[in-house]
């Protein structure tokens, strides 16, 4: 039975459980819902939950594990020699799976019947030709060991599927029966259902931790590899970034970190005031017409591919800043600058600040405004003194989100601020000059990973070390932010 059908059938059973559970609860209360512990629908959900959840969990576990077990037992039946020929067991298995699929197709198309397909032999029949006839892709001639393994594979898969179906339905029925039996007017169905939902909620939040663990694990190995090849002291304290194909690269993280901070700062200086004022205007002053048009329009800014912004920075903003500001002031003549990237990135970040802040300002209770108006404050005074402080935690969240996005951006930085790291050894003046070319950690992670350098060399592996360091640094900043937000969080009402 195909998985989809099993799932649907289990859901069908769950649905029946819902109605039966509901009716039974009502019945036990003599049709008077008031004497039930919970609302009738909770009894229904309780039955649904017990029917569906264990059955589907087992189904999922079975479907995940069974193929591995089948693969293992099939590969044991394949002679060593066959595996040695193809040099790898997983490739032989792929071939076996393909042959098995072709056999199934042959049966389905009526080329052979079920019985013959089980007893095919390469010496008596031209199996390869037969299987090719089904339109399946068979790469080489099917040999007897492969055919045998394929038949074994089919048999095992069939048996596994049968047991899977039986187990799933048995579990569903047991759950169903247990739930119905438990259903009684004094039974606390709501608590059980709510506990079930709580489990789902906790699981959903744990995904964040799992992701973090996954990220750390997937980078940790290569990072340790990197520090085996390159001194950590030079990496963390080095002030020069110049990778070299010949080795002997100087891979200091500091110039990249500085670039990241500087460019993000400029971007936020653009995005936060504009975004915040836009949000305030939209939520406090604008009529519904303007709001309905302007808000989605600004949100589109977040969806324009960053390459468009990048080209805009490269072709328009970069030369403009160079010719009108940097050169007249004698601050450099590079069309790549922190300013260019920051300005353009700031525009991209506007919706991150404005849209979220708008929703949050909108949610500040009207009573607070009315109170302020009642005391004679003007609209802007109300906003500054009452609404913004009330909305502050949410606004900080929005700004943090924008900052996160700024740190992670690559295309705008590459085209706006260039790919050369900050020249830290040339003195403070060069470092803080916003009209100098600089680059960020993220840009270098991408470029070292997608470059042409030897993948086992420190020049490529440094990408993982950069990624992990950035991860740890932002983690630190976030702990700090959490602390600050918590300290200043106020609840109004």
């Amino acid at each position, binding site marked *: 039975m195909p998985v989809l059908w099993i799932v649907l059938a289990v859901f069908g059973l769950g649905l029946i459980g819902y109605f039966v559970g509901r009716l039974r609860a009502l019945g036990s209360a003599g049709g008077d819902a008031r004497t039930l512990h919970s609302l009738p629908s909770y009894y229904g959900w309780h039955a649904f939950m017990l029917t569906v959840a264990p059955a589907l969990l087992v189904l999922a576990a079975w479907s995940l594990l069974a193929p591995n077990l089948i693969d293992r037992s099939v590969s044991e039946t394949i002679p060593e020699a066959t595996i040695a020929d193809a040099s790898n067991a997983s490739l032989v298995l792929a071939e076996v799976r393909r042959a098995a699929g072709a056999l199934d197709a042959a049966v389905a198309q009526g080329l052979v019947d079920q019985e013959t397909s089980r007893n095919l032999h390469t010496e008596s029949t031209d199996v390869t030709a037969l299987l090719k006839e089904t339109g399946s892709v068979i790469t080489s001639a099917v040999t007897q060991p492969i055919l045998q393994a394929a038949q074994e594979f089919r048999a095992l898969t069939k048996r596994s599927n049968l047991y899977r179906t039986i187990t799933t339905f048995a579990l569903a029925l047991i759950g169903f029966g247990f739930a119905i039996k438990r259903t009684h007017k004094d039974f606390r169905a709501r608590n059980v259902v709510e506990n079930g939902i709580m489990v789902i909620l906790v699981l959903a939040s744990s995904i964040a931790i799992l992701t973090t663990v996954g990220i750390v694990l997937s980078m940790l190995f290569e990072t340790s590899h990197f520090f085996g090849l390159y001194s950590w002291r030079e990496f963390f304290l080095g002030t020069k970034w110049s990778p070299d194909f010949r080795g002997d690269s100087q891979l200091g993280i500091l110039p990249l970190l500085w670039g990241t901070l500087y460019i993000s700062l400029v971007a936020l200086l653009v995005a936060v005031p504009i975004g915040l004022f836009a949000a305030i205007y939209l939520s406090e002053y604008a009529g519904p017409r303007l709001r309905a048009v302007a808000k989605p329009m600004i949100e589109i800014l977040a969806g324009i591919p960053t390459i468009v912004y990048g080209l805009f920075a490269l072709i328009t903003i970069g030369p403009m800043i160079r010719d009108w500001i940097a050169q007249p002031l004698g601050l450099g003549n590079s069309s790549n600058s922190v300013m260019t990237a920051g300005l353009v990135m700031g525009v991209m970040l506007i919706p991150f600040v404005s849209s979220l802040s708008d929703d949050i300002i909108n949610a500040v209770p009207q009573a607070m405004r009315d109170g302020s108006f009642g005391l004679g404050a003007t609209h802007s005074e109300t906003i500054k003194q009452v609404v913004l402080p009330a909305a502050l935690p949410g606004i900080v969240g929005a700004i943090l989100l924008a900052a996160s996005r700024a740190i992670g951006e690559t295309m705008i930085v*590459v085209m706006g601020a260039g790919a050369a790291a900050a020249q830290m050894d040339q003195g403070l003046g060069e470092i803080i000059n916003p009209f100098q070319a600089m680059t960020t950690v993220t840009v270098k992670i991408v*470029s070292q*990973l997608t470059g042409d350098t030897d993948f*086992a060399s420190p020049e490529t592996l440094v990408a993982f070390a950069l990624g992990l360091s950035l991860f740890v640094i932002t983690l630190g900043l976030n702990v700090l932010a959490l602390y600050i937000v918590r300290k200043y969080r106020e609840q109004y009402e």
Partner: protein
Amino acid sequence: MSLFKLTASTVAIAAVSATAAIARDNVQVAGSSTVLPYASIVAEAFGENFDFPTPVVESGGSSAGLKRFCEGVGENTIDVANASRKIKETEIAACADAGVTDIIEVRIGYDGIVFASDIDGNGFEFTPIQWYKALSDKVVVDGALVDNPYTKWNEVDAALPDQEIAAFIPGTKHGTREVFEDQVILAGCEASGDFDVFKAANGDDTKAAEKACISIRTDGVSTDIDGDYTETLARIESNKDGIGVFGLAFYENNTDKLQVATMSGVVPSTESIATGDYPVSRPLYFYVKRAHVGVIPGLQDYASFFVADEIAGPDGPLAAYGLVSDPELAATQLIVEELKPMSEGM
């Protein structure tokens, strides 16, 4: 609560179908973005002319391609890695550790590297010495090493036009950068005789002297490009004085916007590079996992088709696009035909 039902069912369906063990039936290629255009031209023609599905060709750089190539053997690893450089010893070792042995190396031709400027600007006739003098961090003036003082081309060499030096060279991630440093800057450094001064300054250490020669100035005269040639072109369009480093194929497609500079008096073209007259070029390769041949449908056909005369030959579509075809193509075809792994093939 319907949200949760939806999630639960989707997760279940996703998890279940994930293990449906679908055998892969297309060739999977990854690697260098320089080889990508050629590989996609071949893949397209392959899909048109064979009953196999069109191979999937990924870009992402030689390094990432070879890394995934060396991830192991099996269906969820790639079959072919494109590279704009030869595979390194360390990489072969890493491959072997993961069980990837018997790698077939196929050289498909050469990539010419050219210098081009805006079509309406001055024309240039370069020598490596001029590039070295224009871009090296330190140059020799009156026998002494000094910070590079040149800001105009005619200061470097009176024969060049009076134009600001603004070079757009490939960033350190690109393999082209290595070729540029070795075959242009270092060659210029040695040809100008300055190399000995560097050597003396570095205590007779040849390696340190080479490194000093090729370290590029960081005062904004030269700009590293980590993006693609399209970015270099856009930069030249916004700065008409700029001179960029391009692949020959890219220049060939944009002859209405760019004019190419000669190097040591030779105009770059597929012919002059094939004969070796034009000095700046690099070989392009792809690597095939022998273990996948015969298992992944169409893999060997794809490899043979790639190096066939009608594709990779001097009159084929690859050459028309700008690939410098390999004069020793017949030897390569033999390697592919016999599936000769590297150790034996070399």
